[in-house]
């Protein structure tokens, strides 16, 4: 398997993963699934289970077919399925609560922009058009990460690097997770100078994420972004396999 195909395989698998996570959050909506506790989940009605099974089958087929044929139809179907489950999820909560619950779909973003970039590609060569599509996906994901940094600056200025920024978040998260992690977070929360530097580094890396759109800078930026996401997972406790894998997958596809 080539590096390109490996990247494509990650995209395909994660499209199914993303669907499954959303389905689980919906099926367990009467419990506390966003807090990763399924203990309160009741047995869902049969029609819900049927929807989940049929939907998962369709999504798996779409992802498999996309991986093997590269066709736009199964890719569009996969994006459509992610949209469907998001709409279903939204109905289980009031108004825009799903946004506050923080469920993002980076692989959905990647393939949606791949479709758009390929459709608008200034070439009739399908292979070249596909490359244009993946470049568009990289651009969208570059701006996704860049916006994290931009929004921090526009909403809070440089406060992110003060004790009210990262220190406070670390202190809050010192009450969750395995004991060694909790101790590490508390230790870092008590080190304002270190966390000021870490906070600044994080914002700089998020802003540097914009360069993921530039092919010549992509590999280096991808390494920085993966480290950023892993740092967020360890220090702040957000377990995000989709964000962890989307940048390496796109880099593998476009740089192979």
């Amino acid at each position, binding site marked *: 398997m080539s590096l390109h195909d490996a990247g494509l395989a990650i995209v395909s698998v994660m499209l199914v993963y993303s669907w499954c996570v959303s389905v689980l959050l919906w099926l367990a909506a009467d419990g506390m699934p966003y807090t990763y506790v399924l203990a309160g989940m009741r047995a869902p009605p049969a029609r819900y289970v049927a929807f989940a099974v049929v939907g998962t089958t369709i999504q798996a087929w779409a992802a498999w077919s996309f991986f093997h044929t590269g066709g736009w139809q199964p890719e569009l179907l996969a994006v459509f399925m992610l949209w469907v489950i998001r709409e279903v999820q939204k109905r289980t909560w009031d108004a825009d609560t799903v*946004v506050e619950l923080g469920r993002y*779909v980076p692989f959905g973003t990647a393939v949606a922009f791949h479709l758009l970039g390929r459709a608008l590609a200034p070439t009739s060569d399908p292979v070249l058009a596909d490359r244009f599509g993946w470049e568009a996906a990289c651009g969208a994901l570059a701006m996704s990460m860049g916006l994290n940094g931009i*929004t921090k600056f526009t909403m809070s200025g440089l406060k992110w690097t003060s004790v009210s920024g990262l220190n406070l978040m670390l202190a809050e998260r010192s009450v969750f997770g395995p004991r060694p992690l909790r101790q590490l977070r508390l230790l870092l929360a008590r080190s304002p100078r270190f966390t000021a530097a870490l906070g600044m580094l994080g914002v700089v890396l998020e802003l540097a994420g914009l360069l993921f*759109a530039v092919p010549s800078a992509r590999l280096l930026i991808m390494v920085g972004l993966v480290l950023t996401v892993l740092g967020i997972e360890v220090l702040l406790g957000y377990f995000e396999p989709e964000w962890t894998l989307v940048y390496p997958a796109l880099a593998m596809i476009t740089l192979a």
Partner: protein
Amino acid sequence: MTWAELPQLLPWWGSIFAALYFVAAMWFEDAFVISTYRMYSPTADRSEGAVPTFFAAGVEARMIDYDRFEGIDPTGIRWDNFACSHQWMVHEARRWVEEHLAQRPEPGAVEVVWGFRVFKVTDAGEVLETFHPMVSGRAVRR
């Protein structure tokens, strides 16, 4: 630029779509596959951080291990003026109580309190913590 030269746009295609994403995000803010990712950004603009916490019989516990709540108004489960970066926990806690209210006084119910552990970090790096109860009542362990 002629049509034949257009493939030279390839290295710039990502930047063009990054700009397109930016415009779409500013326009739609949060729509499917687009987001401004503003969720955690305001959390830096605060002096305290509130973490939802549940106590049963005076001991910190998981709320999901309790049901048949009595004497608790679920609408009191909100972050109010507290700066909370765990909003999903507040949403889930409120709905859990809403959907698991007691129909009548339950034997075996214990005193429960839901509120915020409020953290503050001084410039010297000292971590201060207080507890602010928001709602209290009784509930039964499941």
